[in-house]
């Protein structure tokens, strides 16, 4: 198996020039998507209007639309796209499982459960302090990930990736069950709130939420990038990684903490779209190969692009109503997975 992995990783490494080119194309696409998204909305603004307003020469109405309605949401989409994608990329590397995503550690289920418990604590919607929700989601996700981790550790053997995935599934299933029991007790309007939250609506669409997420990315992303070589070594299999001098357990734990931190922060302020964390690293691997130095960057860009496009579509397809971004991501991502499946058969 180890040999196979090595061969696989060698084979899928792409020439450096091409990789750089691919990353540039992704970045360019993101910029294009950014401007398209800025132009998209009920009130038509021409690209020229957008540029003029960004330069500070727009009308009051144009400024309101761009700076307070569209821009925070666009930035938020990009941020959580990056967060989920990088988090998924780490988890796929650590668990050596291409189907891992941030949901696999029970993060999303834990965060959702916390949010539901929280809604029970407040009899009316008006009393709820808004900024508590992200913090609680964070705590819930962290607890669930900790539980998964504790369950998958066995003495003398340390952390096994397979057990990690399996106990993650078990924890998520348990938390989901608890959640369903609780939702039965919720009043319809509260249930609606939880349901919407779970289906992946981006809800922190104002500047304070964007600013709340920013430090997480600024701190965690460079730390992840510094570990990209560790991820590469982990991908070679346990024996090989130990042989190459990696402190296996410690590195794994550190990487998982980074992944949990990233996706919890995203779930908490943004949306519950862990599917983006499954699909973006996949696409990235196809584009630039499995060297994590490039894959991480490509995954981040792909995730940002994916979420931005999905959110823009969700915003305009059923105007004046909106489709939750998570649903658009799923609709866009599912065919891609079917395509992968069809290809791997031949």
């Amino acid at each position, binding site marked *: 198996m180890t040999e196979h992995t090595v061969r696989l990783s060698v084979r899928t490494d792409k020439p450096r020039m091409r990789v750089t080119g691919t990353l540039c194309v992704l970045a360019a696409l993101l910029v294009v998507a950014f401007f398209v998204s800025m132009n998209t909305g009920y009130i038509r603004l021409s690209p020229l209007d957008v540029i003029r307003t960004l330069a500070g020469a727009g009308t009051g109405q144009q400024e309101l639309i761009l700076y307070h309605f569209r821009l925070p949401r666009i930035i938020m989409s990009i941020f959580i796209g990056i967060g989920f994608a990088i988090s998924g990329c780490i988890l796929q590397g650590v668990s050596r499982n291409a189907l891992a995503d941030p949901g696999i550690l029970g993060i999303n289920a834990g965060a959702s459960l916390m949010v539901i418990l929280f809604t029970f604590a407040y009899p009316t919607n008006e009393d709820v302090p*808004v900024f508590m929700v992200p913090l609680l989601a964070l705590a819930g996700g962290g607890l669930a990930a900790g539980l998964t981790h504790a369950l998958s550790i066995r003495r003398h053997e340390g952390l096994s990736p397979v057990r990690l995935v399996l106990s993650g599934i078990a924890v998520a299933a348990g938390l989901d069950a608890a959640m369903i029991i609780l939702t039965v007790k919720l009043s319809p309007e509260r249930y609606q709130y939880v349901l919407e939250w779970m289906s992946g609506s981006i809800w922190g669409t104002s500047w304070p939420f964007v600013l709340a997420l920013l430090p997480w990315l600024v701190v965690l992303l460079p730390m992840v990038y510094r570990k990209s070589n560790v991820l590469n070594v982990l991908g070679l299999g346990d024996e090989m990684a130990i042989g190459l001098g990696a402190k296996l357990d410690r590195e794994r734990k550190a990487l998982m903490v980074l992944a949990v931190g990233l996706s919890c922060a995203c779930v908490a302020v943004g949306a519950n779209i862990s599917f983006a964390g499954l699909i973006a690293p996949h696409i990235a691997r196809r584009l630039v190969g499995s060297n994590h130095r490039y894959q991480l960057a490509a995954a981040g860009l792909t995730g940002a692009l994916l979420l931005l496009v999905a959110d823009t579509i969700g915003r305009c397809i059923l105007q004046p109503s909106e489709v939750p971004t998570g649903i658009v991501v799923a609709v866009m991502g599912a065919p891609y997975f079917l395509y992968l499946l069809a290809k791997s058969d031949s």
Partner: protein
Amino acid sequence: MVAHWRVGGRLVRAGATCAIVAALVTACGTAGGNSSNASNATGATSEAATRTIKTVKGDVTIPAHPQRIVTDYYAGELISVGGHVVGAAPLEFGNPFLKDQLKDATDVGDPINVEKALSLKPDLIVTDSDKNYDELSKIAPTLYIPFGTTHNIQETVRFFENIVGEKEQGEQVLAQYEKAAENGRNALKGVIDPKATAGLYELTDKGDLWVFGDNFGRGGQALYNALQMKMPPKLAESKKEYLQISLETLPQYAADYMFLTTYDPQHKGQALKDLRQSPVWNGLKAVKEGDVFYNDFNTFYPYDPISITKQIDLFVRMLTEKAKEQQGQSSGQ
């Protein structure tokens, strides 16, 4: 898609309360230059220019006589007291009693699409959801009024006439309501046993069953406040405005007269068919005696003063016609 639950006026999700101040932008701009806008601009010095309304989000200063109101689910309430509604949520356009009044209004989506709201240049926004509150309040003064803020039609009228600034209209609406209520009660004298119970039920396309109290739409105000019918005792005891019940517990919540609406946006019809074939349903006294009424969702869902007043007549007509029919049958035998 989720309209049924919409009634709850949902969401914890207050947008960020934070420091970004609603300072920016008078979205209504200089459009029209009508008197209220103009006087609004001169500030609070003149007594008639603005009024302050207390809301759960704090005091909000609104024009004394708003001319362009955007709302989600308060179109009927605002219109009933003379409000000029220019935008409302999609479901409001299905309300048969508001067809005429809303024919020039625009569907602003649910939750309110902020850009669409902005394009309507409102001078007041009234919403029962706090989802977009911060964005909306940058467009125009925004009143967040959670569902269930008022408890009966009288409170509702008083509350909204204060927002719209038309006191005489409110008096008129309540007078009309009282008259319809009295006429209704008189018409039912001798037709309905005063001790008889009546219940409001709803079946969803997923097969869920609900029973409603006097202040959750479905004609509750018309049936219980205006016509003074009695609730099923178990529902009255629970003091709940709505209750989900299983088919097995339905007999405990049954009434002598049962009014059933079906929430079935795709018109599948399956849930109602299943219910009507179930032995529990067919074992109910009201079903056996033919005192069950299958009603239109859009007609009975609304809970604004205009709709409530019209619903009184509908209930009275249903009950008297059924009584006549049954009399005809028994005398024919």
